């Protein structure tokens, strides 16, 4: 059924005929344009074309990734009472998971890669603001932020500029709104030069009956616009995020939005206060990507109703904006609220208290159309559901890149093993690598303690831990969260890399004493229309999905950022994974740092001969090659069960997952990431040693270092046998500040002064940033 054509647009430039060039400029294919004409039963006008273009961009429609995402489990199999998914991925702005006693958490991750490449400070700040709105929109009070960052090497001035801007932007927004930023991960690699990744996560807390939906309903209910006025900023941001970066992107600069964290804070408080009033809010949706367009048509589509808005009523910061500009603007700190008819005054009063303006801009209507009026005339009429549901789904071609076979065939024996001196030099080299070095330069700029619920923040344990005050003093709950992704593994073997990302996150949770609840993820990849790039995406998702399924960790939301390419460089596939876990008792919270000497150190897991795609190859041999380590899921499941029981028995003083850099780097982190600096006496007498390099610096998966009371060490090892887990007492921590490593066939024991190692590890990033 053709929709009635809108009247000629008051702005004559918008009545121009739609040429193939215009269609192309809007990132739409000729086929997609035909589909638009079919939906409307006529030609769209320019504003309508713009609306289709943003709603059908990858960013909003997931047209290239939607089919892949279906592989993710969205619900738990094991319906344990405190593990239900209450709002699933794709249903609302963010997923919601039960944590027991009527309480729930709501969390999601979002990328702001392209905006941060163009303007690091504002790009990162608005990324934080955007994810914040996604969370409080659901009715949840935000409780924490984390972030995943990827930059080019710090030897590049441009990468330093970007990192400085991004970190300032995140701290500027997050500190101002008063939500602690407690963790995340940061890697440096030339593949991110000029194409940084900035993924921001927010998690909030709410009661089951506080969940709000982004759906319009009740014909006649008023539609409110609240928050900042609309300007021309961020025009076309969603389609901008769905393009490759080119030299021209610099000219895209007017598309960069500017955030106002002060306004963001007021908006959050006002909305939470409003949502706390029974029955006042019918539906609520933030204006993020594609702004007014997306929020209007999504609320209408979810509620299966029509929505009509009048642009003259939309608060505007600039004069003379036409309907195209108003509908596509991505000005920040704005929300769309559908209120209960007759209660307008209550709502307006709340916003007045917070010095904010609530503008009634429209109504919920009969039918299913999104109708936009300006100066009393209809300028847009589109069936809302067609914008959100009818976006064409592509089946991009996937071709396995040829380099995979080549690098996977790399033979470790072509590399001479390390000599004693080589071992001695390699450790400090690795500790000085910015991807491994201490990240205090970054997280010291984030307020990690506001809200006074932070138990463990970035660097104190393998996952960050916060307390959630759920009612009275003895109803506190403790949750843990971690972000992970080793993109080099994904580059070397996308399927295995995907598995490892999830498994590592879950292992990190286990090391803090947590059981995994649910996952969110951010898929940062290259152009999906290039078959080799799409192959990487497809395989990574398969690995992620299978691992989630295996550990019964549902995916409750996420984000897809494709087109992370700039001229001829594209990023390594980077599926950032973030898993949230629950810690059943405060006693179980376990840190990763040693707190006294004389603790026995136990290595859990095997010592296979794996070096492919390791930090060691990259840092010491300048090699990016080899088959990444294999991930044995069954083995890890046993490891986690075992660890959980040992933690519950109170035997574990510290637990640390061995990741980038391998065993000695992991050990060092335990010895000096805490307040004090310890040493250790290590002896590898009982281990089968093939090569020094893979023993000391290999990154075989599923390995954990434990610190336990020396008198209990044998019990722990004994118990491990019953789980079929390889456990070895490799030595003891000491108070002398010397790391002393011996093995039967070493020429002489190797010794490092741990205070100097610590200095190297702590100063690497600060001194790189001083230049």
């Amino acid at each position, binding site marked *: 059924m053709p929709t009635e054509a809108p009247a000629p647009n008051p702005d004559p430039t918008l009545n121009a005929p739609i040429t193939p060039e215009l269609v192309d400029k809007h990132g739409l294919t000729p086929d997609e344009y035909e589909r638009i004409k079919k939906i409307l039963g006529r030609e769209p006008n320019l504003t309508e074309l713009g609306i289709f273009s943003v709603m059908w961009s990858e960013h909003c429609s997931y047209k290239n990734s939607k089919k892949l995402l279906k592989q993710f489990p969205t619900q738990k199999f094991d319906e344990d009472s405190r593990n239900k998914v209450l709002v699933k991925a794709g249903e609302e702005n963010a997923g919601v998971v039960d944590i027991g006693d009527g309480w729930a958490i709501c969390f999601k991750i979002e990328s702001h890669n392209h905006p941060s490449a*163009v*303007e690091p*400070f*504002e790009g990162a700040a608005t990324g934080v603001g955007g994810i914040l709105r996604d969370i409080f929109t659901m009715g949840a009070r935000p409780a924490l932020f984390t972030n995943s960052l990827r930059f080019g090497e710090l030897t590049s001035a441009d990468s330093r500029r970007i990192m400085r801007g991004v970190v300032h932007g995140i701290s500027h927004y997050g500190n101002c709104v008063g939500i602690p930023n407690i963790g995340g991960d940061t890697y440096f690699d030339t593949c991110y030069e000029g194409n940084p990744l900035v993924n921001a996560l927010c998690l909030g807390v709410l009661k089951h009956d506080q969940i709000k939906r982004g759906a319009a309903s009740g014909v006649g209910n008023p539609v409110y616009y609240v928050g*900042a006025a609309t*300007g*021309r*900023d961020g025009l076309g941001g969603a389609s901008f995020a769905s393009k490759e970066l080119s030299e021209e992107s610099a000219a895209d*600069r*007017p598309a*960069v939005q*500017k955030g*106002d964290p*002060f*306004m963001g804070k007021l908006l959050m408080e006002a909305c939470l206060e409003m949502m706390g009033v029974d029955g006042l809010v019918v539906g609520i949706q933030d204006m993020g990507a594609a702004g007014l367009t997306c929020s209007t048509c999504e609320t209408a589509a979810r509620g299966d109703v029509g929505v009509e808005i009048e642009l003259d009523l939309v608060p505007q*910061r*600039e004069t003379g904006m036409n309907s195209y500009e108003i509908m596509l603007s991505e*000005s*920040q700190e704005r929300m769309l609220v559908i209120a209960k008819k007759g209660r307008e005054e209550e709502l307006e009063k709340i916003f007045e208290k917070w*010095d904010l303006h609530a503008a009634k801009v429209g109504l919920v209507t009969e039918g299913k159309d999104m109708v936009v009026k300006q100066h009393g005339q209809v300028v847009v009429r589109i069936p809302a559901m067609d914008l959100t549901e009818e976006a064409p789904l592509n089946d991009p071609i996937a071709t396995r890149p040829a380099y995979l076979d080549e690098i996977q065939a790399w033979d470790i024996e072509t590399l001479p093993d390390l000599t004693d001196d080589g071992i001695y030099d390699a450790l400090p080299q690795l500790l000085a690598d910015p991807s491994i070095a201490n990240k205090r330069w970054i997280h010291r700029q984030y307020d990690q303690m506001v809200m006074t619920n932070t138990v463990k923040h970035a660097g104190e344990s393998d996952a960050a831990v916060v307390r959630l005050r759920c009612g009275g003093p003895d109803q506190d709950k403790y949750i843990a969260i971690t972000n992970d992704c080793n993109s080099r593994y994904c580059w070397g073997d996308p399927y295995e890399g995907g598995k490892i990302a999830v498994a590592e996150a879950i292992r990190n949770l286990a090391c803090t004493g947590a059981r995994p609840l649910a996952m969110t993820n951010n898929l940062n990849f290259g152009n999906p229309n290039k078959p080799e790039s799409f192959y990487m995406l497809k395989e990574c998702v398969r690995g992620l999905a299978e691992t989630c399924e295996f550990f019964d960790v549902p995916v409750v939301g996420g984000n897809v950022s494709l087109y992370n390419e700039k001229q001829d460089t594209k990023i390594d596939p980077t599926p950032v994974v973030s898993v949230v876990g629950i810690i059943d008792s405060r006693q179980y919270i376990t840190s990763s740092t040693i707190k006294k000497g004389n603790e026995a150190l136990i290595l859990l897991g095997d010592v296979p001969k794996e070096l492919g795609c390791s930090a060691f190859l990259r840092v010491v041999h300048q090699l990016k090659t080899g088959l990444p380590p294999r991930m044995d899921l069954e083995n890890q499941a046993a490891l986690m069960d075992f660890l959980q029981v040992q933690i519950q028995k109170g035997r574990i003083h510290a637990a640390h997952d061995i990741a980038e850099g391998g065993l000695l780097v992991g050990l060092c982190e335990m010895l000096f990431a805490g307040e004090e600096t310890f040493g250790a006496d290590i002896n590898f007498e009982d281990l089968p040693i093939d090569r020094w390099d893979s023993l000391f610096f290999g990154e075989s998966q599923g390995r954990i270092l434990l610190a336990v009371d020396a008198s209990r060490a044998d019990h722990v090892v004994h118990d491990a046998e019953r789980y079929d887990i390889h456990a070895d007492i490799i030595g003891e921590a000491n108070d002398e500040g010397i790391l002393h490593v011996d093995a039967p066939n070493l020429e002489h024991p190797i010794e490092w002064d741990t205070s100097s190692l610590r200095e190297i590890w702590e100063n690497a990033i600060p001194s790189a940033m001083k230049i």
Partner: protein
Amino acid sequence: MKVTVFVTPKKTVLDPQGAAVGHAMEHLNVKPSSDVRVGKTIEFELEGSDTPELRAQLEKICDGLLSNPVIEDYRYELA
């Protein structure tokens, strides 16, 4: 020679600081009849005289370091 660089937020770019200041001025019963815009000045002395080379140098630091061309405009005065 005394250099003063004036940096102002671009007209089309949101100036949240200016908005907050405007609001506060109203509390003190001064009602601006326009938006309030808050900018920056950077003052310093430089050896040398007003030559094209010096201006070129100044442009270099103004564009990027002293102002962010994405969101700000600048001008300078030499005295």
